[in-house]
């Protein structure tokens, strides 16, 4: 899709970035010690820390990814909201206060508090680095997706801008600036998301959205000769057809312009429904709906084709409330788009075909994670695995764990967690409305689900779009800052200071952390460019799976099982991290990323948690039992 940058959007974007940098420079002057750099001196008030928690957590995955998933796969996207919040129960009830009591700078300190083990220091530091990098990828992908409609820049430019700004922030000021950036961003994100939902409900639903370049795709009559389409109305010439899964895709031509259509033969007369297509021709050209990109033939999608309200079918609903909005979608029909890859006359074509879906299907689980009709044991395992990772992953994320050390006491850690749960829970309810709004307002870009929420805001005017996009960009900046602080703590404090026993001065340790921040920032930029186009919430699901597998079993067993030994913790982190990583690298989604056939992936599901989390628990139990005598001695 081509986007034109709006001057107001650019001004607001620059203002937000300037504000973030201003905060950073202000706090940089006050931060010179390691204590100040890693934990803001433990002086952050609990209420500020609670919203900063929310700011950390409501990352690109929550705002961009979940809304995008809900817009494309309905309720299955909302499963992420439910799982992400449920994970905070583990954080609050099990982890928050003990971690604060035991820890100093990083979560490795807490794990190692009883043991002073080199193995724990090494493994905990490495696992923090791995999880942070997994979490950084989706943030960078989100940044790239944002700058395209906001500033009209390519994906890679967004990734580089975020990488550069964040590295500057972290390499200057550390945790205090990151906290206040997250506090401001978290507050703004929740307020403006609420405003967006109120505006959306006031507008209601409409079968003919009036968003900018949106147009209702054509439906034309066709004639069949056997199973082949022989002719189509409105002056189109049939050029051929391809079957892909349940879809018969037909190539038509008119005035030298090729377009793709899907055949619907379920009614009395066969009809062709206009699709969107992106063609990579054999001579290296890329065509959007048959023309070069600058001709702007590609258009946004997503609408309701039937609305059923209070017992009758209507074209428009007018103002709706929080319940009637959901009910109207549930009782209607949503036009989704199915993505198909085909080869035709030497060209490689991606076709997005109309997929009318009943509202009742859209509003219950099953479109992404096959659980009912068409399900298999593996699709069910994939779902359970995802929910396990989300539930157990939150309390093991390094950038969340380090926030327990920024408040003065365990009681403040608990209170700030509750503020976070209330803020995050409220926001996650809003994600359902924003995602559904994007699905039905004609704003979706079929190439990137990540832009659903900002583009929904755009349908209500440039100001709302500009402010929402700028906040989303700040969201990425804040989360990436937190992750890089966590990574630099892992390297400078856990690996270099404690494990390798480098004899640091206070300033030397901060310097090592800042150099690490620059290196991790560079790696994140590279990965953000490589993973372009993947849904950011899906990617974050992987980070949760690695965190839940590598860290959580150790944290829980260390707190609640007296027989836990240092070797048990060390091997548990090792086995959890390696098994989760291996399963991810051999998953169908990664095979698709390698350019291979996803059905050939040796692991038949994407989410590793159901195997790697129990494996990590078993490891800590077995190894701890085997090393009891040594521990007692």
């Amino acid at each position, binding site marked *: 899709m081509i986007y034109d940058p709006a001057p107001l959007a650019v001004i607001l974007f620059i203002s937000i970035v300037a504000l973030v940098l201003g905060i950073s420079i202000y706090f940089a002057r006050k931060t010179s010690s390691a204590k100040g750099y890693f934990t803001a*001196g433990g002086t952050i008030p609990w209420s500020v820390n609670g919203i900063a928690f929310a700011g950390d957590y409501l990352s690109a995955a929550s705002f961009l990814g979940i809304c995008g998933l809900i817009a494309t796969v309905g*309720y299955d996207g909302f499963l992420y909201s*439910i799982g992400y919040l449920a994970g905070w129960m583990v954080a609050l*009830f099990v982890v928050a206060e003990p971690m604060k009591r035991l820890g100093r700078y990083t979560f490795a300190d807490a794990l190692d508090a009883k043991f002073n083990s080199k193995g724990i220091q090494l493994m905990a530091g490495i696992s923090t680095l791995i999880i942070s990098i997994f979490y950084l990828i989706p943030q960078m992908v989100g940044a790239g997706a944002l700058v395209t409609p906001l500033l009209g820049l390519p994906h890679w430019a967004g990734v580089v801008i975020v990488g550069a700004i964040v590295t500057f922030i972290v390499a200057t000021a550390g945790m205090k600036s990151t906290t206040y950036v997250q506090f401001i961003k978290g507050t703004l994100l929740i307020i403006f998301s609420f405003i967006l939902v109120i505006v959306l409900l006031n507008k209601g639903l409409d079968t003919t959205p009036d968003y900018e370049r949106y147009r209702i795709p054509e439906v034309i009559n066709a004639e069949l000769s056997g199973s082949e389409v022989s002719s189509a109305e409105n002056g189109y010439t049939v050029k051929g057809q391809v079957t892909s899964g349940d879809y018969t895709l037909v190539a038509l031509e008119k005035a030298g312009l090729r377009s793709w259509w899907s055949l619907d033969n379920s009614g009395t007369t066969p009809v062709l429904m206009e699709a969107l297509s992106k063609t990579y021709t054999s001579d290296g050209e890329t065509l959007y709906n048959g023309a070069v990109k600058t001709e702007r033939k590609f258009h946004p999608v997503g609408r309701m084709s039937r609305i059923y309200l209070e017992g009758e079918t209507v074209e428009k609903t007018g103002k709706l409330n929080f319940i009637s909005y959901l009910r109207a979608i549930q009782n209607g029909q949503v036009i989704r788009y199915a993505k198909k890859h085909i080869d035709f006359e030497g060209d490689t074509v991606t076709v997005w075909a109309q997929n009318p879906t009943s509202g*009742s299907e859209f509003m*219950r689980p099953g479109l992404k994670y096959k659980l009912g009709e068409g399900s298999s044991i593996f699709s*069910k395992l994939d779902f359970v695995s995802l929910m396990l990772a989300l539930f157990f992953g939150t309390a093991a994320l390094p950038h969340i764990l380090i926030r327990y050390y920024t408040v003065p006491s365990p*009681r403040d850690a608990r209170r700030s967690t509750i503020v976070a749960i209330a803020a995050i829970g409220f926001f996650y309810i809003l994600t359902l409305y924003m995602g559904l709004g994007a699905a039905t307002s004609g704003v979706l870009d079929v190439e990137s689900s990540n832009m659903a929420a900002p583009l929904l805001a755009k349908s209500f005017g440039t100001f709302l779009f500009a402010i929402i996009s700028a906040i989303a960009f700040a969201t990425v900046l804040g989360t990436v800052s937190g992750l890089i602080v966590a990574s630099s703590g892992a390297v400078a404090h856990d690996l270099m200071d404690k494990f390798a026993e480098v004899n640091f001065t*206070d300033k030397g340790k901060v310097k090592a952390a800042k150099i690490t921040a620059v290196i991790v920032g560079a790696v994140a930029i590279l990965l953000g460019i490589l993973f372009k186009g993947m849904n950011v919430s899906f990617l974050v699901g992987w980070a949760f799976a690695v965190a839940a597998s590598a860290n959580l079993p150790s944290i829980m067993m260390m707190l*609640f099982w007296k027989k836990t030994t240092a070797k048990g913790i060390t091997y548990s982190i090792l086995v959890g991290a390696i098994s989760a990583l291996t399963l991810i690298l051999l998953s169908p989604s990664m095979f698709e990323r390698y350019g291979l056939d996803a059905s050939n992936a040796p692991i038949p599901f994407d989410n590793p948690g159901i195997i790697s989390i129990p494996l990590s628990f078993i490891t800590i139990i077995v190894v701890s039992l085997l090393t009891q005598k040594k521990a007692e001695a």
Partner: protein
Amino acid sequence: MLHEPATQNEDEDLAADYKTKLGLRLFFVYGMVFAGFVAINTFSPTIMGSIFLFGLNFAIFYGFFLIILAIVLGVIYNNMCTAKEKELNK
């Protein structure tokens, strides 16, 4: 080397055991409700599509319930912990 705590923790917390037990109990309660959600989706997904309240299906209701329950349990936990801290840590 710099292994000192970043912050000075409060004096010994006499309510720590109470809070740990309460946290585990509430974690168990929420865990069961969450497991129920996962189990219904996995083994009887059709239940999720059935109309439950206000014309909305069970999936929407259960999802919202899990989010609101998390907030309510969080507030209850904090109030009970604070009361116990005041009682024991005078």
